[in-house]
């Protein structure tokens, strides 16, 4: 691959100097001007400028070197869904599920773990909403209202060469509407089953001829799933969400060649989180605060040369309070030290003694250890009697002895069964500063380049996760050259080179060839490599829970650190890697008006980190391998002005080879390991949507069909659902109200990914109303 890249770099920069071809290739010939703008000397005082310049125009779909699904605002309105993640169901090969621990929607392209959303890049107007400290996308925390979205461009497949690291399985690029395009006031309200209660208000105005503004606010709430045993509309599962934000968008024309766009936003949210085990006494709900400032300056140097500078700052503050009761011994400082030497032994001693201390032989053992008369070998043998197999060193036994001595009450060691209750918080505050310059230049009709530099600082502050403040700086250069050696052939060669504090430097190349069969028809071959950098918590954790306001305990402390923890430099993870090959066909026909995209692909992923990142996961390794092959199709058919059909289908065949030592694992254990990456995927899926408009009324009927969902379970799920969105638009002069109803019929009652993720009724219905003026 590298050899290819160098070859194309030579062709681009060595072999085909822009000056060798001639600078005027783009300028219209004098003869053309003579007949073309014949009326110009008589009609216009000044020349009509070239507005949609070669640099400004979007790439024609047939020439795009990737599989792309574009969802326009028209479809968003027609489907009537409430959230970004629901829109992703209409993208072929994309699946949505729900993570359990964070109560967060998960979206995966082909296959990925549902628990943490970290292998897809998500951008809002070029701003990454990937969290800085613990890499993930929290969908509810993205401060963009569907009503403000112009379009969503989903690049299906890795694309680090254009979008940088974490553009691993794909890239979801959300483009919001310019405030000039939403002038006026918009009000929306939605209410229905499952606690759905959404409000949206927005006002856009022109401050002057050259300055436009939009202020949007949204509140959104629902009750989430109903739980595994709930029936007839009951909700037995506590997973509600309430989120609200305000954003200000400003667009300004500075002069005839430059413009500035600015966005500001603040957001607050409350997400119910399930209790983590039996120790939790309260629900560790998440309270979140986010904000951002974003600015983009665009400059047109000439008709064929265009640049932008983008800068943003964003913060994400998350607070999770907990009150839990655990054995007091787990807060013993000696247990903390022991955990670092021998986590299994520490866990046994700190958490496991309470249940057995009443046994006379255990009392005797504990006493012997406390007095220092038991050797490591004797202790190992005694633990084996209790079904605990663990190696013990002299030093470790010394720490066990300290724990037992602290628990001695003068008579016996019954304190080892004492429980202490304590508060803890998992506060984490992320910040990101990002600066980027991107330059697009069409050198001549043979060559166009997009190049740039990017600098990012990720900063995180959390006593719990990082023991204070941590930074991670990333520097990136990228280049994509679009070369047209022949009329019918377009070669795209690109790369990103990245340097990062926390991870090794990485080079991600991409090469694509599009053969144009016609102006709107092409075959493409793409080879792309990408990486996902392990995040700061994966790579450099300093994760420990401090108990405060502790109830009375034999240690006599009010505050102490829980023994389980993770410490810096405890691991050295590699980047997750993907190499993808695809063969695609795109065509747009005029009559009938059909746009179709088909692709077959193979993705080879290595060094995947499949383990969940939790306090007790010490053995995290980047050693899972996954191969995915399959085919997918997207078809958009416009039947006159009144009807359109959106049809997608996908076949995904994924094979996972879990890392580590697999010898001795039962088939059930092996399956469970594989399932962590496959839980979200369906082998076959078809989504079809039909929209019809009749006068003031419009309706959209969608059907989702996923077969062999969650494929490794004994009884793979089938997931089917109908959705109908009806709407009536009215017009009373200045005021345009509309009313609508959205009905979702769940055909299969089985849970989505985890057992509690199901609804207790077959129908979800909500009413919507809107007013524009």
């Amino acid at each position: 691959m590298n050899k290819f890249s160098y070859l194309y770099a030579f062709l681009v920069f060595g072999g085909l100097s822009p000056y060798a071809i001639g600078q005027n290739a783009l300028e219209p010939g004098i003869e053309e001007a003579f007949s073309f703008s014949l009326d110009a000397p008589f009609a216009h005082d000044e020349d009509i400028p070239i507005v949609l310049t070669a640099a400004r125009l979007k790439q024609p779909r047939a020439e795009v070197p990737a599989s792309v699904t574009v969802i326009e605002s028209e479809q968003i309105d027609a489907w009537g869904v409430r959230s970004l993640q629901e829109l992703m169901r209409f993208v072929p090969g994309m699946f949505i599920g729900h993570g359990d621990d964070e109560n967060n929607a998960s979206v995966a392209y082909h296959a990925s773990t549902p628990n943490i959303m970290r292998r897809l890049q998500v951008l809002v107007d070029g701003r990454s909403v990937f969290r800085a400290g613990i890499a993930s996308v929290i969908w509810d925390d993205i401060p963009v209202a569907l009503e403000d979205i112009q379009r969503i461009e989903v690049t299906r497949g890795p694309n680090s060469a254009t979008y940088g690291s974490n553009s691993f399985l794909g890239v979801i690029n959300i483009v919001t509407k310019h405030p000039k395009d939403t002038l006026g006031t918009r009000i929306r309200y939605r209410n229905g089953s499952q606690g759905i209660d959404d409000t949206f208000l927005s006002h856009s105005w022109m401050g002057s001829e050259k300055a436009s503004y939009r202020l949007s606010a949204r509140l959104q709430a629902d009750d989430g799933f109903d739980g595994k045993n709930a029936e007839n509309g009951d909700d037995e599962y506590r997973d509600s969400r309430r989120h609200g934000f305000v954003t200000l968008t400003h667009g300004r024309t500075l002069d005839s060649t430059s413009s500035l766009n600015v966005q500001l936003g603040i957001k607050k949210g409350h997400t119910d989180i399930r209790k983590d085990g039996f120790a939790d006494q309260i629900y560790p709900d998440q309270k979140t605060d986010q904000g951002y400032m974003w600015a983009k300056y665009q400059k047109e140097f000439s008709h064929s040369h265009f640049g932008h500078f983008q800068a943003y700052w964003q913060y994400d503050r998350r607070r999770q309070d907990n009150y839990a009761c655990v054995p007091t011994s787990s807060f013993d400082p000696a247990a903390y030290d022991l955990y670092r030497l021998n986590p299994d032994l520490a866990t046994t001693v700190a958490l496991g003694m309470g249940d057995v201390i009443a046994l006379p032989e255990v009392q005797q053992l504990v006493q012997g250890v406390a007095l220092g008369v038991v050797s490591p070998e004797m202790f190992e043998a005694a633990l084996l009697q209790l079904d605990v197999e663990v190696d013990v060193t002299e030093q470790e036994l010394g720490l066990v002895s300290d724990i037992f001595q602290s628990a001695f009450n003068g008579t016996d060691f019954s304190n080892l069964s004492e429980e202490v209750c304590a508060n803890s918080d998992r506060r984490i505050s992320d910040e990101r500063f990002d600066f980027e310059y991107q330059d697009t230049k069409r050198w001549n009709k043979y060559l166009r380049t997009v190049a740039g530099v990017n600098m990012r600082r990720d900063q995180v502050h959390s006593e719990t996760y990082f023991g204070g403040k941590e930074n991670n700086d990333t520097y990136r250069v990228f280049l994509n050259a679009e070369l047209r050696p022949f009329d019918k052939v377009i070669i795209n060669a690109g790369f990103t080179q990245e340097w990062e504090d926390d991870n090794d430097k990485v080079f991600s190349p991409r090469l694509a060839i599009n053969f144009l069969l016609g102006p709107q028809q092409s075959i493409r071959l793409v080879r792309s490599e990408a990486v996902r950098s392990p995040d700061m918590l994966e790579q450099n954790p300093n994760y420990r829970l401090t108990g405060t306001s502790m109830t009375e305990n034999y240690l006599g402390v009010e505050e102490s650190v829980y023994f389980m923890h993770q410490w810096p430099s405890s691991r050295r993870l590699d980047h997750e890697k993907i190499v993808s090959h695809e063969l695609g066909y795109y065509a747009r026909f005029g009559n009938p008006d059909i746009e179709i995209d088909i692709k077959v692909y193979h993705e080879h992923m290595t060094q995947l980190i499949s383990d969940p990142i939790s306090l007790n996961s010490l053995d995290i390794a980047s050693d899972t391998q996954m191969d995915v092959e399959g085919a997918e199709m997207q078809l958009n058919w416009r039947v006159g002005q009144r009807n359109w059909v959106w049809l997608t289908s996908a076949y995904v065949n994924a094979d996972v080879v879990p890392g580590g030592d697999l010898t001795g694992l039962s088939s059930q254990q092996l399956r469970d390991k594989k399932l962590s990456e496959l839980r979200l995927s369906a082998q076959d899926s078809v989504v079809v949507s039909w929209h019809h408009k009749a006068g003031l009324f419009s309706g959209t009927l969608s059907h989702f069909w996923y077969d062999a969902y969650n494929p490794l379970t004994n009884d793979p799920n089938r997931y089917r659902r109908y959705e109908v969105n009806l709407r009536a638009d009215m017009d009373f002069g200045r005021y345009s109200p509309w009313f609508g109803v959205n009905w979702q019929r769940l055909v299969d009652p089985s849970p989505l990914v985890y057992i509690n993720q199901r609804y207790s009724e077959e129908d979800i219905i909500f009413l919507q109303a809107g007013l524009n003026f």
Partner: protein
Amino acid sequence: MTLKRLLTLLLLGVGFLSGPVLAADVVFLSHKPLPVVTELARQIGQKLGLQTAVQIISDSGFNSDGARAVVVVGPQALALWTPGKVPAVAIFVSRSQVTNSLESLHSALYLEPPVTRQVALAREVVGDDVPIGMLAQSKSSLSVSGMGRNTQRELGVRPYYLDDYSDINRALVDLLDECEVLVGQYDTELYSAENIKNILITAYRQNRPLIGPSSAYIRAGALATTYSDLEDVATRLAEILDAGLRHERWLSPGYNPHFKVRYNEQVARSLNLVLPNAKDLAEALKRREAK
């Protein structure tokens, strides 16, 4: 046409400024030396077998002695022109510019394509039963250009009058929301160099193409237009002069029935549009107009 030839034509044109005016059957009046006018005069001479000459008209007037007809080229020349005994035809003037001089002119050929033709083109590009939007400064400005209420209804055109809005962008928001395509009517004030940038960028952001108003806007980023090139103008002018001079029947002022269709291929590809063949489409539109 080569650059060398153009320069020669230009020099010839300039030559008329200083040299004695030759006796000519048809005198072309232009406000400044323009290769277009020189070439047009040459073609007319060739087509009709007449002597033609180009004169630069100024405040001090022009000399049409011995001429059988005068061709006033462009609104600038028309403003300086004073009616005389020699029959006059105005070309490269818009319908609205010629309104005041109608009585003194024997005929005129408008420089803009008729808006109904542009609408017919838009219909071919985006299909039937698609609402077509038009911006206009006021109700009267649309009906003047032949797009009265009945025609609007007949052609499925929705007008958006700037008079009804606080600014052009609010009108554009409504139009682009409700219509698939924007057809520009020939109004150089509305579609000025300054406004066109805003209009085109706003429409393009929402994947809506602009049709027209004239060929000058194609390079700017309009998707398609009908237009008459020099050959078409020469053909029509020859028809007008031939009818007037030989048969003494001056054709009434009107649009050029000879035209072509032009696309901005880059914009079409970028909007992923499949367009019909331009030549065939022009012929189909002509046949429809002839009916």
